[in-house]
C-alpha cells in the first residue's frame, strides 16, 4: 500500500493521511505534488511524504513520529 502523509512539524501532528493501492503510485505522487503546490500558494509549510508499506500497522511501526506525540514516544520501553 502507498500512504500520502501530510505532517505539521512544529505542532508535531498528522494533518492527513490517504492510502492508495500499489498500482496507483503515479496518482499518489501527483496528489503529493498538488498538495505541495496548494500549500505553497497558501504559504503553508508542511512535510508531505509518500511511504510504501505492507499495511498501516507497518507504517505506524517504522514512522511513529507522524502518529504519536512526544509523551507517547517517551514510553517506548514500557
Amino acid at each position, binding site marked *: 500500500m502507498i500512504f500520502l502523509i501530510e505532517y505539521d512539524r512544529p505542532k508535531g501532528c498528522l494533518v492527513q493521511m490517504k492510502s492508495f493501492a500499489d498500482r496507483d503510485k503515479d496518482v499518489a505522487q501527483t496528489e*503529493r*505534488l498538488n498538495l505541495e503546490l496548494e500549500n505553497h500558494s497558501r504559504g503553508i509549510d508542511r512535510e*508531505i*511524504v*509518500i511511504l510504501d*508499506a505492507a499495511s498501516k500497522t507497518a507504517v505506524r511501526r517504522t514512522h511513529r513520529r507522524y502518529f504519536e506525540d*512526544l509523551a507517547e*514516544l517517551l514510553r517506548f*520501553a514500557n
Partner: protein
Amino acid sequence: MTETSLTRTQVNKLGDRLRKGEVSKSDLRLLEDYRRSFTEAYDHVVEKIRNELGLAPTGRRAKSTKSIIDKLRREGTRLSTMQDVAGCRIVVSDMLGQDKAVRRLEELFPNSNLKDRRKMPSHGYRAVHVIVPHSNKLVEIQIRTSLQQSWAELSEKVSDVVDPLIKYGAGDEEARFVLNSLSRVIEKYETSELRLALDELKDSKPEGAISDAIKNAQAAKKQAIIDSLGEASEVLLSAERTKNDFSN
C-alpha cells in the same frame, strides 16, 4: 506528469535555488521530476529486498521537499549527490538481527556502501545504512534495531516540537544531553546483549533459544532504559511546554 530527464547541472542549480530559499512552483515541479527519476532504482532495490530476502521494509519513495531543503542548507551538499532522496527502512529486534540483515543486504547488493553509525553515532543517532547504486541513482536502506528506531523517532519528534537544531547537535542543551545519555544507555545494553548472544552461538546453542543470561541482560536493559527515559521525559516534556508557552 511527464518525467523529464534533468542533467546534473540542472539538478545542482535547482538545489542551489532551493538552498537560497527561492522556492517557486516551477522548481517544486522540477524537484518532483527529479524524485520520479529515482522510481526505477527504488523499485529495483525494494522489490529485491522483499522478494529475495523476505524482509518487509517501509519504503520512502521520495524525501519530502522540506527535508531536502533542510539538508541542502545544513550540509551544503549538492542535490545531485544527496544519498537519501529515495530509500527504505527495516526494523529488526536486536543487533544480532541487524548484523545478519546487513550481511544479507551486502550479499544482495555487492556494490553497495556501508555506513555503520553504531561505530560513529551522529549526535546520538545509531543505525546502519546501506547505500545501493543502481542506474546512476543511489537508494539508502536504513537498518535499525527497535531500540535504535525508538530513539531516532524520539529525537526527530523533539526536533519537531522543541528545536529543529537538536537532531544536528545544536539547540537546547538539556534536551540534547538527555537524548545523548539515552542513546549511550541503549548502546551499552545492546552491545552487551550482542556479546552474550554471540558467545552462546559459539557454544553451539541454537539461535533463538534464550538463555537465563540473556533474559537477565534483557531485564537489566529494560530497567536501565526505563530509568533513563524517566529523566528524559521530565526534561523533554518541560522543553515542549516552554516552547508552546512561548509560541502562544
